[in-house]
Structures are given as C-alpha cells and as structure tokens.
C-alpha cells in the first residue's frame, strides 16, 4: 500500500463518523421536511413541497427572522466592542491581570438556562433588583419584560453578559499572539495609543475579529434558552426568534414535518447570510489592513 493510500485508511474511520454525525441528520431532516409527520400522522409519507409552500405564507416565521437579525447583530456587536475593550485592558501589564482574566470568563462558564432564570428574576418588574435600582435613582420602574422594546433589550443584555467573555477570550488570544515589532515601530514613529490602535492593533486583529464575530453570529442566531425562559417569545410575538418559533412548531405543536421544513429553510438562509456577512466583514476590515 502506498503512503498516500495508507493516509486515507487512517483518516477513513474519523471521516465515516463525521459523515454519520453531520450528513445523516441533515439528510434525514430534509427527508422529514417532505413528509406530513405530525401529531396525528406518524411516519415518513411523501407530500412533496407542501410544507415549503406553507412556510412561504407563514408571516410569523419571516417576522421572527427580522427579530433574530436585530437580536443577533445587536448583541454580537456589543459583545465584540466590550470583549475587545476588556481584552485590551488585561493585555498590557496591569495589576491582578490573572484575576481579571478569570473574572471576565465566569459568565461564559455558567449554564445558560440557569442564568436566564436568574436574569428573569432580576428583571422581574415588581420583585427584581433591577427595578429596585431604578427606583433608587428616582425613576419609575420599567416594564422590562412586558414592553416590546425593553423585552428585546433585556434579552440582548443577557446575551451580552453571557457571551462577551467568549469574545474577550478570542480577542485576548489574538492580542497575545501579535508580533511586538509593529508596535515598537509605531512607538518609534511617535504614534499615540489611539493611532496605534487604529493603524496597528485593529488591522492586525482583523482576521481573528472576523472569525470571532462569525462564530458568535452562528451561535447567537440559534438563541433559544434565553427567549424561552425570559419572555416565552412575548409580549405577543415581540421577542419570538426563528429558533424559538421552530421549537414551538416542532416540539410543542409536534408538527415534525413542517418544523423540519422550517429548520432546513432556516439553515439555508443562515448559511447564505453568514457567508455574505463574512465577505463584507473581510472586505471592510482587511482592505483597511492593506491600506
């Protein structure tokens, strides 16, 4: 057996597992999406594109995409800015640097659904500490979870709190891997901290920034537990995201075939959107690097 072939033999088991894990569920979902499997009709019959035609007219599904976009983009941008700021803070020699690095990571280590319950209690409009604080500042208590805009903001806050540490971790790793020479050169040229950040640090961090943003966008677009616990998609449908809507249709209503069609459509849309976003980010951030 040639060396090339033997390589394949070693890779094959892993490849088979990977295909089984990734491809089979995907193909099965596609097959289910062409069936009428629901609470009254178990099994994989064939109904053609009926589910896909139905979802074209499902305004609740398309509206949930709009909310998802707002929630995901809003929270990831905030996470990026905060994460970058915190990473810059502990990148340089500061006192208790190790302590702060661990401290900033704690929210990410907590269980999302448990934290969502705790945040829900904090935002509780009559019993939660957030409104106690608002009252201390002599403002009227706010309807954090029962007014559309504030409910959206509350969920974004929870997401930012939970996932900024991920950004922090990625960006800190990026900062620590940067070569020292460009910074020395900038210092010799007399560049101040802002100029150094804009002309040296930020452009050199562009590739890792794009990676971190895309990874977080993928994760944020699947947001479910926070919405489920904090608002159940309400008030009305004001915080209902695509994944929550698919969850309702699939697991609550048990419309398995239709939920599969929604899931596959969601996957295609997300794949296209994220590819476009990655390209746009790369063009915006890497062009600046070349300039």
């Amino acid at each position, binding site marked *: 057996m040639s060396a090339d072939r033997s390589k394949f033999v070693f890779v094959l088991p892993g490849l088979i597992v990977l295909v089984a894990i990734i491809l089979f569920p995907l193909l099965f979902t596609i097959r289910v999406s062409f069936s009428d499997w629901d609470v009254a009709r178990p099994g994989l019959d064939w109904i053609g594109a009926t589910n896909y035609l139905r979802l074209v007219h499902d305004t609740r599904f398309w509206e949930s995409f709009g909310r998802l976009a707002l929630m995901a983009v809003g929270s990831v941008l905030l996470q990026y800015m905060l994460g970058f700021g915190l990473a810059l803070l502990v990148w340089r020699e500061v006192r208790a640097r190790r302590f702060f690095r661990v401290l900033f990571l704690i929210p990410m280590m907590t269980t999302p659904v448990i934290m969502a319950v705790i945040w829900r209690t904090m935002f509780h409009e009559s019993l939660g500490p957030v409104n106690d604080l608002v009252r201390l500042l002599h403002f009227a208590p706010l309807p954090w979870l029962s007014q*559309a805009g504030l409910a959206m903001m509350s969920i974004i806050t929870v997401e930012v709190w939970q996932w900024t540490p991920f950004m922090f971790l990625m960006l800190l790793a990026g900062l620590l891997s940067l070569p020292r020479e460009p910074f020395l050169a900038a210092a010799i040229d007399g560049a101040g901290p802002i100029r150094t950040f804009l002309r040296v640090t930020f452009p050199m961090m562009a590739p890792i920034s794009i990676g971190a943003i895309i990874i977080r966008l993928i994760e944020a677009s699947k947001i479910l537990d926070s919405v489920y616990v904090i608002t159940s998609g309400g008030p009305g449908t004001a915080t209902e995201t695509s994944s929550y809507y698919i969850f309702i249709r699939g697991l609550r209503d048990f419309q398995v075939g239709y939920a599969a069609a929604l899931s596959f459509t969601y996957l295609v849309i997300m794949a296209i959107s994220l590819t476009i976003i990655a390209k746009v980010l790369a063009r915006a951030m890497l062009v600046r690097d070349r300039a």
Partner: protein
Amino acid sequence: MKRIKKYTLLATTVALALGGTLASAQDFKKYGIDKDVPGACSYASMSKKDYKGRTLSVITHAVPVMGEPTDLHAKQFQELTGATVNVVHVPFGDLFQRIMIPFQTGQNAYDVLFYGSLWSGDFHDYLAPVPKKYLDTAGMKDVTPTYRKVATWGDTMVQYTVDADRNYLKYRTDVFNNPEYKKKFKEKTGHDLAVPKTWEEYDEIANFFNGWDWAGDGKPHFGSAEVTKRDDLMFSAFIDRASAYAKNPNVKGGMFFDLKTMEPLINTPGFVKALEMFVKAKRYFPPGGDNFGLGDEIFSFGGGQTLMSYTWDDAFVQAMEPTSKIRFKVGSSPLPGSHEVWNRITKKWDHFDKPNAPAYVTWGWTSAVAKASKNQDMAFDFLCFFSNEANADHDLQIGRFGINPYRNAHFTKSFWADKMGWGKTVGDQYVDTLLTIDRSKNHVFDLRIPGVNQFMSSMATGVSEAMAGQKTPQQALDDVAKEWKQTVNRIGVDKVRAAYANVVKLEDNE
C-alpha cells in the same frame, strides 16, 4: 379439654393476626403515612408481590410537581416488591414529545407515563385500558364521576386517576371583611364589597384595590395576579375568563367548535368580549403582571401582593402553608361568571339572572400504562400503589407535589380543617368550593382532541398579541380561528370531530 384447646388455638390465631397487622402497620409508618389502608393497592398487598429482577420505566414531570411524589412512591414500590424502578424526569415543555416520539416510532420506551390529561386526545390509542380488577378497587370506585370521565376515552378508562385539577377564585378575606374598606368601596362604586360573582364585579373590585397600601405594610398592593405569559399555561387563564361568556348552558354541541360543522367558535363575541376584558385587566395587574407565568402568579398572590387570583389548587394550598404570609387570610370561591352569554344559534346575547359561571375542569396530572409495555401487570400495580388511600392522603398535604383532591374521601371537611390545620372557616369553604365545581352541571373541559397543543398554542399567541397591543382582540381571535381551521383540515375534520364529540358529551352532560 378439647374446648380449652380450641379456644386457646383461636385466641393464639387472633393474637397473631392482630399482632401481625399492628407490626406491619407500624412498619409502613416509616414511609411517612399515617396508616396503611387495607385493599388491593395497600402497602401490605404490595409487600406480598415479588417483582425481583424486573424493571419498570417511568416518565414523569420534573421535581417537585408530580416528579417528587413519583420518586417517593417509586422508591417505596422498589423496597416493597423488589422491582427496579427507573424514573425519568422531564420539564413540562419537553414532556409531550418525549412520550409521543416513542409511541409513534413503536419503541417501548416507558411502561408508566405521568402527563397532563389534556393530551389524552393524542395519546389514547397508545394506552392500555385499565384492567377491571383495578377499576374494582375501593380507591378507584371512590374517584368522583367528574374525574373518572376525565380518565375515560369513549367508554374505556385508559388513564389512572392520580390527581384532579380545577381553576377557582382565591381572594384575601381580611380585605373583603374589613369594614373600613367596605365603606370606602361603597362610597366610591355604589356597590357592596362582596366576593365577585361576575367578571365585571371582579374588574371593579380589582380596580378599586389597585395601587395603594391596603395591606398596611407600607407598600403598594394590586388588584389581581393572573397567568399571562404566553407559553406558560396562559391558555387556561383565558379559558377561565372566556367560559362565562362563551359556554352557554342552553346551547349544546360545543363551545370551542360547532360539533356539526367543526367551524371554530373562538372568534365569536363571547370569546372576543372575554379577551377585551382580559386586555383591560392589565390596568390592575402588579408591575410585570402581563408576563406572569404560573409560578409568578402563585408567588404574587401568596406573597400578599395582590387581592385576588384564580387558577389551580396549588396556589391556594401554598397560600395556606404554615410559612405563608397570608395564612388564614385567604378565601376560595368558584370562578366568577356573567349575566350575558353569547348564543351562537340565535347570534344574540342571552341574559341570565343568576350569573352563568361554568366550572372549568382544567387539565390535571394523570397517569397511564403504555399499550406496548411488557410489564403491564407491574405498571398497573405501581399506579394502584401510587394512588392508594394512604399515599393520596399523604400527598394531598404537600402543596409542591401538585396532587389535589379527586376522591369523595378527599372532600371530608375535617381532613382540611384539622389535619391540614386550616381551621373550620377556611377548610369548609375550600371543600365547598371544590364540591360546587365537582358537582356542577355546567362544566368546561379542555379541548382534548388530536393536536391540542397546536390549538392551545395558537390561541395563546393570539391572546398574547392582543394583550401586547399588536392586534385588536377581534383581529387576534379571527387569526386564531383561521389557524384552527387550517389545523382541523390538516389533521382531518372527521378525526378531530370524533375526538371533540367526547368532550362535548361531557360538557353537555349526555
């Protein structure tokens, strides 16, 4: 001599028998019960069974509600019979699909199932009928007719009754009996302050007692706590309010659908009126009250924040627990009603001098044995043991277990007054309320039809959209009706009608 021997033998036998009974009664006390009640399902009977080497798989709700008693009685059953009992706990939102998927895919995943009885329209085909020997037990015969009906599909009992639920009104007696407040209320509204008999009265009282310190603790208090969070049992709260306007006792053939045509009635004026009032009710909710789940509602009323509330027994039982701030300050009453009730035949409002107040037998926990189970004998024994008289008495006393009265024996006033320590006033009133609901001839049951979750979920969404101001009540319910129609067509009109006929039969007392 012979005679002496005979009597000695008899005396010895009696003494041994008595001694044995006393010993076993004492032994069983270690399980936390007062005394074992003899019968086919008793501790003594179970201890004679031998299920060594056999395993029972049970799926139930998360701890504590129903999950904790399942754990407790599974452990006891294991010790008594030698069986291995594996209990799987699942959150409520996941429970339906965790049961349904194995059913639909033909897997024999669980022998015993604990779930919400409103799903019986979906599950009944997969459940084993309760064998006659269990139907003939004293415990089962004592289950009230209302809850036997809930456990029955067609003419066959397919669910084993372990709980019963109903929604009713809870209110603060200290406020309603306060002479100063009575005077102020009369001055302001021109009406006497009394437990509301209609939703309009409820509205007026809740509004009057909203936003000021009627409890004298320096904090503002509010009119009403209600379940309003979209996917957190809000559909039950809406049915509570809507039944008064939409369930006309003089019109047979369905409240949610017209049984003949299977046209949804959810957007008819009775339901619309109830939703309009539900939307207006927001003004007397505590802050955040329009996003309250069941837990919030219980906490709000039980914590003394609101004057009134209405939903399950658990809220009342918890309000009367020794640690409760409002212990002995709570009263119970059937749900308010309405003088005006929509008549879908004449398309007019019918006037009732005595308010129409249907009793909503809202879904409660139930249990069943899977048809595919290979351990049906052991599974039914487990359920029979779970709900035996001693265990039921024990479980009724623990609010967090979520088990509420379902046998005639559970409506014994002294049990609640003395054993629970509620006293005569509260205990008697509680039993009277529950009995009124149980014996009502004007019941509303859950929509126990295939796809009930789809119907309830779209109704909750519509109600929530109206509450949030996204749609008017009429628009919201028109959209729900449209979705219900599509769902009926998708599942199959005949299939849904056949199932709904079972519900209508109960509601129409046929």
